[in-house]
């Protein structure tokens, strides 16, 4: 998805240059992967400042461990797996402050005047509720959606078999559905499309 053949080639070239002693070549790697890594970190903590700090730490670890990339997998797979490890350990050290799942407020009914805003807020409640899941269920959900619902990419990032990841996803969905039972009837693609029109705003 995010990785194209040309970017893979650029990654290989930059890695070779960095390992040859040119530290500035790492800039190309950061330039290409800063967006995905910051977004991935954001999904782990939903705090912009902290997401950038965690992504920066992930890049530093990548810099230090670049010689350990064995090229058995693509550079992006290695980088995402390394970043997931960094984010996981950072959140273990300093957990995000979250309400338990049962105490996450139920999304309110849409108001007539600000329907779009209300839905946006309600969807944010659901997204934040993911952070209240136990870590073993939270991380598969975060990575599955980060990888645009690609189970195998999420499984590779977590270093888990696909079956285990699917089972954890299923359990996570069940926990979220139990908390937000009305969502199955309420949301439609159209509503989400409406929400997405306001992304750039």
């Amino acid at each position, binding site marked *: 998805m995010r990785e194209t053949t040309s970017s893979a080639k650029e990654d290989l070239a930059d890695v070779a240059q960095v390992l040859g002693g040119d530290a500035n070549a790492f800039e190309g790697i950061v330039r290409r992967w*800063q967006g995905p890594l*910051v977004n991935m970190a954001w999904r782990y903590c939903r705090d912009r400042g902290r997401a950038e700090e965690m992504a920066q730490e992930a*890049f530093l670890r990548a810099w230090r461990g670049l010689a350990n990339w064995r090229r058995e997998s693509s550079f992006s797979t290695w980088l995402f797996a390394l970043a997931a490890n960094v984010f996981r350990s950072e959140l273990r050290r300093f957990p995000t402050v979250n309400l338990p799942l049962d105490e996450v407020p139920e999304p309110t009914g849409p108001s007539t005047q600000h329907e779009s805003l209300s839905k946006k807020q309600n969807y944010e409640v*659901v997204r934040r509720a993911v952070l209240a899941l136990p870590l073993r269920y939270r991380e598969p959900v975060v990575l599955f*959606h980060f990888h645009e619902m690609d189970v195998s990419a999420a499984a590779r990032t977590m270093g888990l078999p696909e079956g285990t990841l699917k*089972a954890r*996803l299923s359990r996570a969905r069940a926990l979220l559905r139990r908390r937000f039972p009305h969502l199955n009837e309420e949301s439609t693609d159209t509503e989400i499309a409406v929400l*997405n029109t306001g992304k750039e705003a």
Partner: protein
Amino acid sequence: MKRTQIDNSKMDPSSIDRILAAEEELIPSSGFLGTVMESVCEEARMPAPIAFPWKRAIPGILLAAGVFGWGGFELTRQAIPAVRELALTQPHLSLAIERPLEQAGWVTLALASSLASWMLSRRLAGRSGLL
């Protein structure tokens, strides 16, 4: 049953999946790239970590291990007859306790020599600028 549920959820994403997938993309702040590269260049400028001087340390380690091994062997060798005497002859109890104590000098000597070898290896490493 479980497999069907999992596959269905993959085929037909639930509303929860649709909400989570419709997440807006964050754009990293303008200074992010610069901050990361600053940290990377700072690390690149730092001298490489000094490797542990195994070549110099190995003789010291072997010597210390030998001294400890010999000390342990001697202690056991001397202690076994003493324990036997202690078990067999009640009247010689005080002597039986006394003999292992006499060997304490050897143990102290072994410990002292291992300490000396450790200090010597540190000093040698210090002179060569490794410590």
